[in-house]
């Protein structure tokens, strides 16, 4: 007896944080109470991507997409929708543009332009159930490789597909596999880089949480093609749910004989172990990652030798990122040609982005390479929050750059983003509006880099610190035009001399903001003014004597007693004492206080 209806509830980290676990258990209890537990199945899936609107509940077969569901909504959903067939319209998503409820997720702008390959199973299957993965053609790619293809044929297929590394570098995956396959050694390793560290990026986590078997299968395929029988997943320990699901997946694959000895009776064996990282950003760099796995300090070493020649325990090692691996089984199932038909000349397939910042639809999206920034921001992302003006979009995380209005029609792919002074990175995309100060944004990224530098090489250890200090000076209105030259020269030298990818790209946020928002830097330096009104040191608070009625509310709430004035007459702010906390503005009922 199969179920008539499926209720998919997002079990990703984001929705779990908003009680999706409780929703699931309440649904199960209530269905049982109503004797519907034989007809309706509740499934905890991976992330749907629309995290802004979570927790997500999707009802199949009528594809109803409920958003921001609370545990208290469960009875209503079951009573109304499941029993009476009436959609609970207050829980339907409303497009920010026209506020009309949309029932089917396919008609939601957020999903319309998406093409989900890496995320194909996220939000669709129960990630803790291998059978659901198998039902979706899972492990057939592995079977096909092992029984019908030679390792070189597998590599050729991946090469032909044009798949490039999704972790940031964009190196052709097939070529990487080929390098590792050429080295002769008694032992080789396949490593899955799950040390996702870009601020705001969480696609790798979501894939591992929502479709862990795709990683297991892809790693085994990679092992077969390069001649490795051991796989290691390097994952940050602060991803407990991903770790749990991955563990379950590995165990299930072992139980089904899809990992272990003699897979599909072919004599090929492959096992996977999980290694935990402590969350250092630099450990996403493959040599640092390998050293960390070996128990050493997470520090990069000069390449060459590349891991393909000498990696983990000095053995040939192929390192790929989670999203890269997630694409592999589909490519082998549907063919390289199919995959290569999606995307642009130099970048094939799709890319997952983590949309964040001042955008309406925050979440995880997957689009074909070549989709423009405008489509992503305005159509999928639903435009800028609170009707504000778009100012910039930061791509590529701390290694990327800030792009402006003029770049909005750039088709997104590896090469185009580099051309316009940013990069793909792992797919973070942070949107900024007119109230964001670009000097402060550059400073934010530098702060992150200074925090995350391992400190090994001089340019990164000291150079980035100095960049940060110069930026701080500018945001405090103490900068000089000479500082701007220093910033530029130092940025170029760091790019030119740093040891690893982290340092070689760390000045990108600065260079791109100087290039694209030069006037804003100059305003801070020459006019001691922050045009966006963000840099505290450059702001002063004023009380408009026309508007102030002397209610004393501001003065009573000021934590530093910086506001004085007689009752029923206009008040004044002592700018020496004012710490610019903003409490007075929040308290004033007459809009009498402004920032200049």
């Amino acid at each position, binding site marked *: 007896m199969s179920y008539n209806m499926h209720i998919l509830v997002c079990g990703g980290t984001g929705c779990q944080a908003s009680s999706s676990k409780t929703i699931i258990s309440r649904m199960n209890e209530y269905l049982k109470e109503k004797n519907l537990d034989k007809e309706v199945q509740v499934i905890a899936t991976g992330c749907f991507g629309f995290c802004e609107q979570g927790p997500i509940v999707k009802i199949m077969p009528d594809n109803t997409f409920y958003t921001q569901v609370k545990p208290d909504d469960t009875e209503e959903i079951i009573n109304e929708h499941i029993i009476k067939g009436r959609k609970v319209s207050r829980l339907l998503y409303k497009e920010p543009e026209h506020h009309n409820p949309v029932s089917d997720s396919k008609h939601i702008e957020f999903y319309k332009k998406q093409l989900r390959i890496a995320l194909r199973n996220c939000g669709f299957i129960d990630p803790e159930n291998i059978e659901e993965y198998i039902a979706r053609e899972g492990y057939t790619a592995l079977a096909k490789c092992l029984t019908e293809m030679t390792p070189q044929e597998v590599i050729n297929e991946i090469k032909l597909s044009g798949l490039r590394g999704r972790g940031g570098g964009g190196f052709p995956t097939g070529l990487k596999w080929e390098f590792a396959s050429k080295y002769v050694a008694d032992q080789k390793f396949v490593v899955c880089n799950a040390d996702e560290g870009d601020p705001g990026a969480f696609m790798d986590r979501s894939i591992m949480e929502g479709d862990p078997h795709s990683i297991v299968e892809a790693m085994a395929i990679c092992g077969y093609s390069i001649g490795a029988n051991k796989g290691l997943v390097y994952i940050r320990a602060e991803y407990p749910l991903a770790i749990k699901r991955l563990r379950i997946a590995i165990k299930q694959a072992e139980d089904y004989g899809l990992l272990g000895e003699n897979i599909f009776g072919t004599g090929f064996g492959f096992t996977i172990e999980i290694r935990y990282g402590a969350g250092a950003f630099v450990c996403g760099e493959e040599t640092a990652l390998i050293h960390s796995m070996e128990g050493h300090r997470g520090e990069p070493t000069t390449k060459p030798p590349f891991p393909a020649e000498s990696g983990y325990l000095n053995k040939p090692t192929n390192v790929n990122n989670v999203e890269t691996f997630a694409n592999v089984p589909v490519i082998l199932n549907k063919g390289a040609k199919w995959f290569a038909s999606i995307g642009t000349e130099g970048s094939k397939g799709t890319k997952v982005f983590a949309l964040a910042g001042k955008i309406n639809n925050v979440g995880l999206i997957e689009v074909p390479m070549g989709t423009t920034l405008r489509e992503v921001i305005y159509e999928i992302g639903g435009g800028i929050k609170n009707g504000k003006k778009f100012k910039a979009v930061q791509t590529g995380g701390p290694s990327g750059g800030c792009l402006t209005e003029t770049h909005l029609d750039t088709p997104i792919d590896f090469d185009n983003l580099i051309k316009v002074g940013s990069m793909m990175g792992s797919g973070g995309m942070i949107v900024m509006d007119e109230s964001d100060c670009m000097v402060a944004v550059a400073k934010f990224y530098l702060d992150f880099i200074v*925090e995350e530098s391992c*400190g*090994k090489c001089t*340019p990164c250890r000291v*150079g980035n610190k100095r960049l940060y200090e110069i930026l701080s000076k500018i945001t405090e209105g103490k900068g000089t035009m000479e500082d701007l030259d220093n910033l530029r020269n130092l940025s170029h*030298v760091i790019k030119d001399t740093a040891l690893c990818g982290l340092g070689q790209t760390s000045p990108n946020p600065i260079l791109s903001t100087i290039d694209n928002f030069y006037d804003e830097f100059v305003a801070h330096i020459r006019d001691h003014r922050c045009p966006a009104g963000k840099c505290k040191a450059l702001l002063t608070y004023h009380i408009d004597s026309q508007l102030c009625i002397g209610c004393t509310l501001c003065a009573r709430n000021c934590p530093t007693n910086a506001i004085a004035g007689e009752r029923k007459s206009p008040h004044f702010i002592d700018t020496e004492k004012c710490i610019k906390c903003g409490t007075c503005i929040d308290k004033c009922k007459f809009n009498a206080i402004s920032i200049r």
Partner: protein
Amino acid sequence: MEKISLQIDQHQIETERGTTIIEAARKSGIEIPALCYMNLEGMCIKNQPSSCRICVVEVEGRRNLAPACATKCENGMKVRTSSMRVLNARKTVMELILSDHPHDCLICAKSGSCQLQGLTNKLRIREVPFEGERNRFEKEVSPSIIRDMNKCIYCRRCETMCNDVQTVGALGAVNRGFDATISPAFGNKLSDSECTFCGQCVAVCPVGALTENDYTNRLIDDLNNPRKTVIVQTAPAVRAALGEEFGFAPGTSVTGKMASALRELGFDKVFDTDFAADLTIMEEGSEVLARLNAFLSGDKSVKLPVLTSCCPAWVNFFEYQFPDMLDIPSTARSPQQMFGAIAKTWWTEKMGIKREDLTVVSIMPCLAKKYECGREEFSENGNPDVDYSISTRELAGLIKRANIDFRSLPDSDFDNPLGESTGASVIFGATGGVMEAALRTAYELHTGMPLAKLDFEEVRGLQGIKRAVVDMNGFELKVGIAHGLGNARKLLNEIRRGESVYHVIEIMACPGGCIGGGGQPLHRGNSAVLKARSNALYEEDRSKPLRKSHENPYIIKLYEDFLGKPLSEKAHHLLHTHYFNKSK
């Protein structure tokens, strides 16, 4: 080896595949500056983190600059070591280093020999455009080593020496980013770590971050004190290297000039640690024979092999790392401490000096000796047998400070009785020397027959681990010799696993033995320097009329007058020691 050809600046260069750009350039006379890179070729020790980024060069077709120290030459490669792009980058990187480095060169111990200072000058950096935060670390003053991490440039050389070469593991990188520094674990002090004070880190530090604790000012005070009798002992290895500081070629033995200089400085007596080395052989050799005989006669309580115990860093090493094996090393004290014990008992008695009025100073090639003389068991009522030790480098500095024209000093002899020594003792300074000296005496004591050939060539030389079988008139004595604590660890692991086949093992902590000690003039990994120094010692051995410790007349007299015989109760009290479990 496959030959490849490349262009570096204007030079067309042929080199072997696998050579790095920095080495290929060096061979063509182009010196690419570098700070972290260290190639102690003769010792097969390399520090190549490619982290300072001073040696960056431009390689045609490459996106960014390449570290010359870690980039291998390729056929047809075009390299520019000093294009304007390179010079700007190098200057900027240097400015960055200097922006987090104190500028108090005037009073820095490394001033004049600091590589950072030299390079700053070469690059003509006259101001540092970057102002900003500087790291502030607390300076640690241990008996041997002063650690001032504010001066550290994070080149990691000390880490390589401590971890890879010596396998001590006391120093390692801690913290991240701007705060990254080198430290014992958990921010402990060296004195609370497994540090053996071998001083190999000090020997390679390019800046003033790791320096020896300098006792020369204290020495000047003592020499100025009319109430004090100040005597000095000099270790064998010092005479083979001190001359280098005064322009003599490596391997020039300056024993006589050194004695004269010490006398000029005002020491009341100039004695020789070599005397105590002969004494050590008497005690240690007798112990070896006693343990060997007991073992061979079936005494199960006796363990073999016997390990030498002259080297204080080595003693520290096994106390920390092999506490389960504390009963194997010989209980004989090191020559420095035997000297102190005899000087402050027998000699003071003989001279009618009060123990408290005698200051015993040692000149050592070693930094661990500074620590050793402070060990509690080597003192009586708080008065140490040896008051303090100064290194070869410190002595050279003092001689220069005292305006002594070392090169034109006449030779002079050591004073008696504690200055007389045999050839056996002088070779203590080279790896294998203690073993050879012991063999000369043990053979004759064991067999009762004179030794036909005194030179045991098989225990000499710079291989890391040496093995030899010595025919003791029918009995085959198996000996092993290791220098460098990494090599020592290998032998100790064999013993621990029960695989050791040796009867006696000599271990010296520093590569090359004491001639390569942490307090010696810097040899910068040039094994030719080490060879020359050891040759000087063997030459001095050959030139001595007496070459066996048990033939030293003053040693014989010391036993007759005072100690009785080797391993006597008095000898045990004054010349032997015990070890402590210091494992963490």
